[in-house]
């Protein structure tokens, strides 16, 4: 990787575990020996708002904020939020997206149409996209909410970090009774990417 700093943007809606996923990711990258900075704006998360987390890593990182147009990997936990983030991507960026729709209030009441074709629009904009059916896969662990870790399993395939570091970090950072379930979710996500 040399001196290059890699930029990962994680987007979702409050309650999806976007920030928890970015915490896990940051700890994995630290264990792998990188300098890591992360930033997110929270406070509105519990009120159904958009949640965005910036994770940057490399040999030395100064800023915790990704510059618009320079994201290397976008992890989208919700389709409309994935689509909304395209301005943040570098031209060759990779998109890892969950095909999950959470309708904002104005869409719920039929006032503004929800983009159910959001992931196709991402493809049409010319980005390489991997779609993960996060919740359906996560259900195999017995808990839909592990969809965020399923996505991390898929993300792991694209990062210069050994798989064992992910496993160790999950064991170290999660409450003991949740470790098994999350390791399973991680494995399932890992297998999603060929």
């Amino acid at each position, binding site marked *: 990787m040399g001196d290059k700093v890699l930029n990962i943007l994680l987007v979702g809606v409050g309650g999806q575990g976007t920030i928890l996923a970015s915490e896990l990711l940051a700890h994995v990258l630290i264990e792998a020996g990188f300098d890591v900075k992360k930033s997110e704006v929270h406070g509105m998360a519990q*009120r159904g708002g958009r949640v965005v987390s910036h994770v940057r890593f490399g040999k030395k990182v100064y*800023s915790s904020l990704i*510059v618009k*147009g320079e994201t290397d990997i976008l992890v989208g936990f919700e389709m*409309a939020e994935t*689509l909304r983030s395209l301005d943040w991507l570098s031209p060759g960026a990779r998109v890892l997206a969950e095909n999950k729709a959470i309708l*904002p209030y104005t869409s719920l009441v039929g006032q503004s*149409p*929800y983009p159910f074709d959001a992931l196709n629009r991402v493809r049409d904009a010319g980005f390489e996209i991997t779609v993960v059916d996060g919740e359906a896969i996560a259900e195999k662990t017995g808990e839909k909410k592990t969809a965020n870790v399923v996505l991390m399993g898929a993300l792991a395939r694209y990062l210069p970090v050994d798989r064992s570091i992910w496993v160790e970090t999950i064991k170290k950072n999660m409450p003991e009774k949740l470790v098994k379930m999350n390791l399973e979710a991680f494995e399932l996500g890992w297998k999603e990417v060929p």
Partner: protein
Amino acid sequence: MTRLLLSGNEAIARGALQAGVSLATGYPGTPSTEILENLSRMGGTKTIWCPNEKVAVELASGVSFAGHRALVSMKHVGVNVAADPIFTLAYTGVRGGLVIITADDPELHSSQNEQDNRRYAVFARIPMLEPANSQEALEYTREAFELSERFDIPFFVRTTTRISHGKSLVEISEERNTVSTAEPGLVKDPSKYVMVPANARIKHRELEGRIEKIARYSEDCSFNSVEMKETGLGIITSGISYNYVKEAVPDASVLKLGLVFPLPTDLIRDFTSRCERVVIVEELEPCLEEWVRFLGIECEGKSLIPRFGEIDTGTVRRALIDVPQDQDPSGPESINTGEIPVRPPVMCIGCPHRGMFHILNRKKAFVAGDIGCYTLAVSPPLSAIHTTVCMGAGVSQAVGIEAVLPEEHGKVVAVIGDSTFLHSGMGGVLNMAYNEIPATVIILDNYTTAMTGRQDHPGSGFDADGNRTRQVDWEILLKGLGVEHIRLIDAYDLEGIQKVLEEEIHRDSPSVIVVQGACMLLKHKPIKIREPYRIDRDVCTNCGMCLRIGCPAISRKDGSPEENPIIDCTQCTGCDLCFQVCEFEAIGRED
């Protein structure tokens, strides 16, 4: 030595503990709140939520005068509330180290303005440190206590949202722990602590002497550093902006200022004399730029970097490097995504504020509002907030309106949350009663400071550590303020709300309505989730009334305008409001 990924707020808490702080206090406010929450969680010091920032600073000054170290944390606008004691504490100075954290919010992520509190340092003559990452947040906080005692003056530590909430690696070494040099106990020294004019006049002169001493210290202190590289471009910067400079122009020479008041003279003269072009990179106000210009040094700053909003590496790059527009990825939006609906935050499902705002909307009332979760009622479909300026303002705005528009009596109310009322609403109600102005104030009591993440307050019955404590009695309090007409009502009883509001809003004397219902997210007072409701498709006329209460559990299937409303029974808390507004009895429980 351990290495941890810490937010700036976590780091500040650890820095305070390393300085052996005896007491930490403040009032919740984004992005500062987690400092006290972490201190309470970690233990090792006494942690106290005060009803407002002025009380917190005054309390902390008492701790300092008693020879102990004290930390006060608040958001930027909290310093406005606390400004009165702060300005005169610069005169008295301290005994135990006194550190005030001001967490500013450029870009207004969660604030009503984006004032730059570096101005307060200059104005109040209180020195200010500004960390650029979590490591510095820890070290600067710890060192601020030492400096406060050494120079006999309170110290500010200023963060911004990206410092407070951003996370970076911190190396923690217990070897750097410090202790207060002050002797705990009572010290009677009127010339230092009693600011009557005769004493204060002398103290003001002394204060300028202390600032001069710190200015001399700033010339070669460890908080300010020079990184000489290419001399074509020399940048002067501080805080978060330093990081953007290092990434945007890695080859430029940089003067990084960690002590942002008082600023050095010789250090700046020396640095700028070695650089051909001098640019000041700072968010918001031109504080550094004005000082450099005052020294008679030619420089650029706000001509390149905006005076509003947050900046980032892209801002600095665009300001300093010629990037052709079509090759600038951080430029204006270029990707056609088609229409995407906005996603504003909304009140939670089952929120106790919803019912009152539904009624105020139906009544077409003019609502002088305040700051808290209920400010979300500004958005459709509730659309029932018409002013929001600062904490406590709504009460007196309603009183002011009633004073000059008697013909509009019966249409105006003030709404204010419980925590906000105890913060700065009491004076307004006292004034309303004293001057007998027939306004109606509605206190939305959800037993917590909800917006900032549910911190306790004098009305919640718990202290900062979660222990049971005395709880304000609204009736006694309001009666004591002189209010004769006090009504306590249930937040979920629409008929009751309507009836009481109708009576009080038209009353020709002052009145207060306290609407009670616990925040849905409260852990120690969990709301009973009742059986969910459903809509009977055969009875529903699709009138849309249930959608007007703005509950996110009620929707049209797939957002299609033609579909009848449905209730998501996995999310419904059974709060009852939709059942109460349905005129066709189409909403009921499974049975």
